[in-house]
């Protein structure tokens, strides 16, 4: 149902949506049924000529059954929701698949810094591409993100991914996502983080592998590119630290 309002752009967005659907439909079913029954008895046993409206205390076994049976059935529905919640929680938060790409997400008042691993695919190397409020991702690549905060609590939220993860100062929280749809979407902070909370929107850009690689190449300094005339040879790279 949610996909009609917001596309599903991550591999697990469908699971989150299904969970919401199950909760929505079950609650809707019981809501309609209970209210329907309620209005039926109000109308059916109303005061009218020859029939006196009666106040029932609900103490007899038969009267109690009207509450108990739906009660147990709703508990069964709760267990279904709970069971599916565990399945989805495991998929989204616990089971982190091996990654193709890594990205570091740093939240602060009131901006996001994204550290992309660059051409070598390894974080904390010279060719990392650091951007503010712009997250660039490769479609169909499995990502692991490492989320931290510089100051207060934030929440890393990409609605089209159905992803929301708190960023807690002093902790690095890792998670995963796999973009499955090209496009440009919102990234937002979903935890009240101070005066500028409403003004720290970022954008996620999901591109095909070729387009993403072109973006990486465009943002990699020439001397770090392996296939250009400016590239340092392996021996130059090793000697560099000794040169001063």
């Amino acid at each position: 149902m949610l996909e009609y309002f917001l596309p599903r752009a991550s591999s697990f967005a469908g699971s989150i949506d299904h969970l919401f659907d199950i909760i929505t439909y079950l609650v809707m079913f019981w809501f309609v049924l209970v209210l329907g029954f309620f209005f039926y008895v109000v109308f059916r046993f109303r005061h009218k000529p020859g029939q006196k409206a009666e106040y029932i205390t609900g103490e007899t076994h038969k009267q109690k059954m009207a509450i108990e049976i739906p009660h147990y059935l709703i508990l069964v529905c709760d267990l279904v929701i709970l069971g599916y919640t565990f399945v989805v929680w495991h998929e989204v938060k616990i089971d982190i698949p091996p990654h193709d790409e890594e990205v570091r997400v740093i939240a602060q008042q009131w901006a996001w810094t994204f550290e992309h691993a660059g051409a070598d695919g390894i974080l904390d190397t010279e060719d990392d591409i650091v951007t503010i409020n712009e997250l660039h991702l490769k479609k169909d690549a499995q990502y692991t993100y490492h989320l931290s905060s510089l100051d207060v609590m934030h929440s890393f939220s990409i609605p089209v991914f159905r992803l929301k993860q708190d960023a807690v100062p002093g902790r690095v929280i890792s998670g995963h996502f796999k973009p499955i749809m090209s496009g440009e979407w919102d990234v937002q902070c979903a935890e009240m983080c101070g005066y500028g909370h409403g003004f720290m929107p970022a954008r996620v850009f999901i591109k095909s592998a070729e387009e993403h690689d072109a973006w990486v190449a465009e943002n990699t300094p020439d001397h770090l590119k392996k296939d250009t005339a400016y590239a340092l040879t392996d021996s130059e790279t090793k000697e560099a630290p000794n040169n001063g």
Partner: protein
Amino acid sequence: MVAALSSAEDERGKQLYVNCLACHGADGSGNKLLNAPAIAGLSEKYVSAQIMKFKAGHRGGDPRDAAGMQMRPMMALLTSDADVAAVSKYVASLESKPIAATITDGDPEKGKALYMTCQACHGADGKGNDMLNSPSLLNQHDWYLVSQLHKFKDGIRGANPEDITGSQMRPMAMILADEQAVKDVVAYVQSLSQ
């Protein structure tokens, strides 16, 4: 007519300043806890120029500048040149007040010699000079001056090729050889405010 327009602009500037006062304070005296410098009494031209730099990402656009990045969303609230002008005028109209020192191990005597380089633009009295795009340094928080000098030295501020006036400060900051030199010159600047 002119007076009425001017009055409307003043009122607009005061309204817009509501977005600033959470960090910079109603009197523009700043707040260390929120990394906010004193802005009261800074020249209209300088404030306006800095706002435009934040808007364009020439300042606060380096991922290492966490405090500068705090200003980014605030700038998004100023949507027109007229708003920038109005709030800059209001900031300039606020009265600059003395600020208590927090750094005590700087030597103003040594700083005085280092300040010779600075005074070419900021003036011997530290009041700045709009013609040279240099702000007043008086009644400014010492921790802010120290942090900005470090940012200029480290290429976090003034390193964007579009930031012409900021890039003028970089070589000036580079003459401060070490942390103590930075503290010394800031100590001297603080003495100018007294």
